[in-house]
Structures are given as structure tokens and as C-alpha cells.
């Protein structure tokens, strides 16, 4: 590092605490960082000052990595997974069963399902779940795209793989109702007890659903 950053002291003319208290470029960085999810003003300051202290190459590598994803990564035109081309690697893979679509909230959920190695169909990323209190209704999700895709292709089953929470369940119920007239088989992932957990610690909702989703076991 060549020069130590000049940290101006807070002045009386400054805006309320934590606002525009640093020299221009630092403040700009703090402002950008504090827009990231889960980063409050304090953490933003800590990260900004950390970046000031690390070797320049390290900081530039981070900036380049951000530039690279924004340049090279886009959304798959069919399923809205992250992709490097028009289609993501899953949609472009001829070995995947294109007649089965697993509907997820977020591309990260695809990673989770893929890790199971149990699913060989394709996906559709909604981009969230219904959350009326946050102003997220069907129009804010990729529901229309899903309907278009279902009318165009030879799809026989839709698996609703939204989160097993209030918003995810509401989304699954909504989609089930919406898709019912299409005559496509619609399934919902089972929810139940975590493997390795103790029954006595299971909450009532989970245990209740696990009972409803019980299976016959071969003797």
C-alpha cells in the first residue's frame, strides 16, 4: 500500500450518523456494499476498510470476478437457471428428461436438488415465492413463463419443489390450482422428518405432514 487512507473526522455538518462521513470514493464503496443482502452499514464499513488494506491485486481480482459473472452469466431462456449460453447446462443436456419439470424458487435450489442425484428431469426457476406482505404476487414470479413452457412442450409431470414454509406452500397450492386444468400430473415434494433427527424434537407441523405422507413398507 502506498498511501494510508485519509479518514476524515465526523463533522457537525454531516448528515445523520453513518451517512456521507467518509471521503467520496470510500463512501461510494460503503454505499454500494450496504446494498448487498445481509450487509448493514456497519458491516459495509468493515468490508470497505478491509478492501483498503488488502493488496491491490486481491481487490482487483474481486472486482474482475464480479465483472466476469455480469458479462458471462445470464439466465437460461427456458428455465431461468444461471447459464453461460442461451440454455443452461441442464436444459442443453439431451440425457435429461425434458418431460418432467421441477419448479424451484431459486437457482440455488437447483444445486441442492442436483446434489441428491435422484432427479434427472429439468427445472423451472420462479424467482421467489408468493409473499403478499412483501408485495410479491404471481405477477412478480415467472409463472406466466411456466405456463407458456407447459403449453409448448411435451411435459407430463410438474414437481412443485418450493420451500416447505408458509410462502413456499402457498406458492405450491397456487400453482397446483393454476395447473389443474392443463391435465398435467402435478406433484409436491414430500416434507417430513430430517434424517438423523429425534422424533421428540419434531415440531407438530412437520410431524403431522410426515404422518400424512407415510408410505407402505414391504415386509
Amino acid at each position, binding site marked *: 500500500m502506498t498511501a494510508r487512507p485519509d479518514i476524515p473526522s465526523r463533522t457537525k455538518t454531516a448528515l445523520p450518523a453513518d451517512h456521507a462521513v467518509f471521503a467520496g470514493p470510500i463512501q461510494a464503496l460503503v454505499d454500494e456494499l450496504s446494498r448487498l443482502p445481509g450487509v448493514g452499514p456497519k458491516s459495509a464499513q468493515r468490508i470497505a476498510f478491509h478492501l483498503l488494506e488488502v493488496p491491490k491485486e486481491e481487490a482487483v481480482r474481486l472486482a474482475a470476478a464480479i465483472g466476469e459473472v455480469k458479462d458471462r452469466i445470464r439466465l437460461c431462456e427456458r428455465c431461468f437457471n444461471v447459464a453461460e449460453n442461451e440454455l443452461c447446462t441442464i436444459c442443453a443436456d439431451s440425457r435429461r428428461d425434458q418431460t418432467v419439470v421441477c419448479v424451484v424458487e431459486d437457482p440455488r435450489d437447483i444445486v441442492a436438488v442436483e446434489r441428491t442425484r435422484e432427479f434427472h428431469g429439468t427445472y423451472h426457476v420462479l424467482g421467489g415465492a408468493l409473499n*403478499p406482505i*412483501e408485495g410479491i404476487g*404471481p405477477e412478480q414470479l415467472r409463472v406466466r413463463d411456466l405456463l407458456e413452457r407447459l403449453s409448448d412442450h411435451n411435459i407430463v409431470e410438474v414437481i412443485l419443489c418450493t420451500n416447505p414454509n*408458509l410462502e413456499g406452500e402457498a406458492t405450491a397450492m397456487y400453482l397446483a390450482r393454476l395447473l389443474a386444468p392443463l391435465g398435467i400430473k402435478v406433484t409436491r415434494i414430500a416434507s417430513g422428518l430430517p434424517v438423523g433427527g429425534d422424533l421428540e424434537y419434531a*415440531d407438530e407441523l*412437520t410431524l403431522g405432514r410426515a404422518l400424512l405422507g407415510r408410505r407402505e413398507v414391504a415386509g
Partner: protein
Amino acid sequence: MATFKDEGVVLRTMKLGEADRIVTFVTPEHGKVRAVAKGIRKARSKFAGRLEPMTHVSMMCWKGRELDVVTQVEVIDHFRGIREDLDRMPAAFTMLEAVDHIVVERQPADGVFRALTGGLRTLSEGTGPALLGAFLLRLLALEGVGPVVDSCASCGADGPLVAFDEHVGGFLCRSCRSGRPVAPDTVALVRQILGGQLRAALTAPPSRATAEVERLATAAIEYHLDRRLRSAHLAPDGR
């Protein structure tokens, strides 16, 4: 650090960091409580199924400076009837959202809490077309800003009352009328709701009056809060 015990209804939750959530409750003794539920997003968390929005719990928290920390939770009611019915959810979400905007941190909210648990229980047991309107009107009354319904809100005349205007604060007579026109059935239903005949009002079959009460109650509470209730205008409806 001090702990406290209270009942609560989870109004909403927000992701925090890697595996935590900030859970917003309404409680009778502590008003709005914002508390961190650590590790809740992990599938094996003891909190996972217990701190979903729209859950009535009894809980114990560490008292923090800005945020409290949830240490124990037991479920009193999951309101499964609502969770499993897409048609009942919009009303429930609107109730939670309205309460979230009305209650204040660390100011007892016993009346609002009881109205909410009562409202959710009723909704969970069966659909009442007048329920959401009745709930919102009762919230306004608890806030001390219930609409004037027994006489004209402007001149005090006995009636007939033919309009409702949230800006004036209630029903209006023919010569003072502004806002939205209302039918006599609507006036009667609102009087029933605010006049101690809530049970009877809730058994009212769906009608123009029940729809109108919901609309005018929504307008009145939005005027009081000076904001729109997102859930009231974003009802998920698959039809």
C-alpha cells in the same frame, strides 16, 4: 442478560446472515418484538417449523439492545385450516400486515393480540365473509380511531346514512355525503360488528354488504396507517 416470557403471533420473518432469521412477533405484554432465531434455516433446527409466519406461540427470549434472541418456543396454534386453504390466506396475510404496522415495540398490545389470535382462530375454523372487514374495523376501534357509525360523521344527523368516507371518519348522511356510496345493509353490518354483535356478524352469508364492509374497512385502515396494505391488493388467486 435478562430473559422474558410472553405469547406471540409471528407476523413475518426475514433472513439474517447464513442460517438465522429475524422474527417479528406481536405479543400482549411487549407489543412488537423483533428477535433473532439462530440456526432456524437449517432443516434440523428446533425452531424451523415453530416460527413460521401465522403461528401462535409461547416463547422465551433474551432481551437485547436492538434485537432480542429467541431461546425457547412452543406452538399454541398453527392455524392449519388457513395454511391448507389458498382461499383463506389472503385475509390472514392482510390481518398480519395490518397488525405489523399498528403495533409498536415494547408497548403492550393486549387488545390487538387478542383480536388477532381470535381472528385467525375463527378464520382457521371456517370462512366468514365478513371476518376481514370486522377484524380491520375492530383494530381501528382499538386504536381509538374507529369510524363514526351511529350518526352522520359530519353533521351528527341520525340518518339515513348513505356514504362512507374515511377522510371524514365514518358514515355520512345524504346532505353531507362524500367518499363511497353504501347500502343500508352495509351500515347495519358495520353497526353489528362494532356494536358487540360480532358473532352474529361473522355468520353473515357472503353478500354485497360483506364485500362492501371489507372494502371500506381496508380503505379506513389504509388511511389511518397512511400506507397501502400490500396483501389486500395482491391476493393470490388461481382462478
